[in-house]
């Protein structure tokens, strides 16, 4: 199943790119990766994780109990890694095209002005 990757989902996948993480670590990673722009609530993060997990992009790898609290670890699956790379390439291409367009900005012309 192919799902639409909006920015929070993209950031969740990116946060898992360098190894498995538990839920709270994912929350802080997403905030760091977005430079504080996106701070997800726990319920929202878990909904995103469930969505990308059901699409096969993320896998639940293990559970640990630390100080009496359950920590659930998630990892990027092979198809998740592939999808993240594709999405990053697409975003890079979009950014490159946008920068090219910005460089091509025409000189400001004033209507009625006489040019010699």
């Amino acid at each position: 199943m192919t799902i639409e990757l909006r920015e929070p989902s993209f950031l969740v996948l990116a946060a898992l790119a360098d190894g498995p993480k538990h839920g709270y670590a994912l929350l802080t990673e997403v905030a760091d990766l977005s430079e504080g722009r996106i701070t997800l609530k726990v319920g929202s993060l878990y909904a995103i994780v469930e969505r990308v997990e059901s699409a096969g992009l993320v896998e639940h790898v293990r559970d640990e109990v630390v100080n009496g609290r359950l920590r659930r670890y998630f990892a990027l699956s092979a198809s998740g890694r592939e999808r993240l790379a594709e999405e990053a390439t697409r975003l890079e291409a979009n950014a490159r095209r946008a920068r090219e367009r910005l460089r091509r900005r025409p000189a400001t012309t004033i209507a009625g002005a006489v040019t010699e």
Partner: protein
Amino acid sequence: MRELEARYRAALRWYPESWRRRNADAVVGMLLDGADHDGRTVPAPGELTDLALRGLAARSAVVLPAAVRSGAATLAFGYGFAFSLVAFWSSWWAPFSRYRSWLRETTPDVSTFGPFLSPGVVLTVLWSAALVLLLIGSGRASRVVLAVSGVVAILLPSVNALVPGWDGPSATNLVFFALAAFLAASAPPARRALVIGVPLWILLFVGLYAWNAMLTPDMPSDRQFWYVFAARVPPSVLVALLILVAIVLLLLRRPVAVGIVALAALPWTAGWYLATIRDNPSSAAGWGVAAGVACVVGAVILVALRRSGVRIVVERPEGAAREVR
């Protein structure tokens, strides 16, 4: 901290029980980690609201799984667009109707909508825009436009009340289009199925209209589909057909398809019922009885299938639930 944990666990009651069994401990762990990090002893602002909203969404996903909603949205998108197109051609614009100009001359007190006969054309424009947006990859914008189309269908009668004599779409059509629009907007449709389905829906409607000389009617009428077909096919036959489809799908072990058909049939059922009340009130009671019988028959079939060993699962089976590893 125990008090905070109790508050979080209470907030998780918004989620379905099966979800809580699988995930509550992990989510409470995350919430308490966050509270420790922030040095809080009370939930963070917005945290409980977020849990309530996500919990309700999880509950609705259990009642109507994503596959059911998406399938029904795909069907509703297809038939809604095609029906708006034939309504536009045969009644809201009706460019080749023999008495179109006569109609406008003899009823000058009835305001038309520019070159069109009815403001229903706005619905066709919105359904078409939604389809174009979906095809160019703007799925989210497409669903917003569909929702707007549903709101427009609801608001059109109010505009009709403000503009005296404005011959807007009938209540039957407005209810049908509002329900179809909200259904189509309720979930992302299966794009490929829709691309295949839209031409088929158009063919079906054009075929039905052409067969009944409705494509270029002498007297354009917004309700022609309903008074022709609702009068010809009694509601009890419609209900019997739906039950038959449900039984076949259940025997084929396709419970998700039953949900899709049942949900997608809602706008049609509502339109049919309204048309029956208006055109043939005496059979409206019979319609209600037929619907009641349908529910009873459906329940009996479900129980019988269950007892015969066929298990219908619309939620993730417990065997697939996560285990602590």
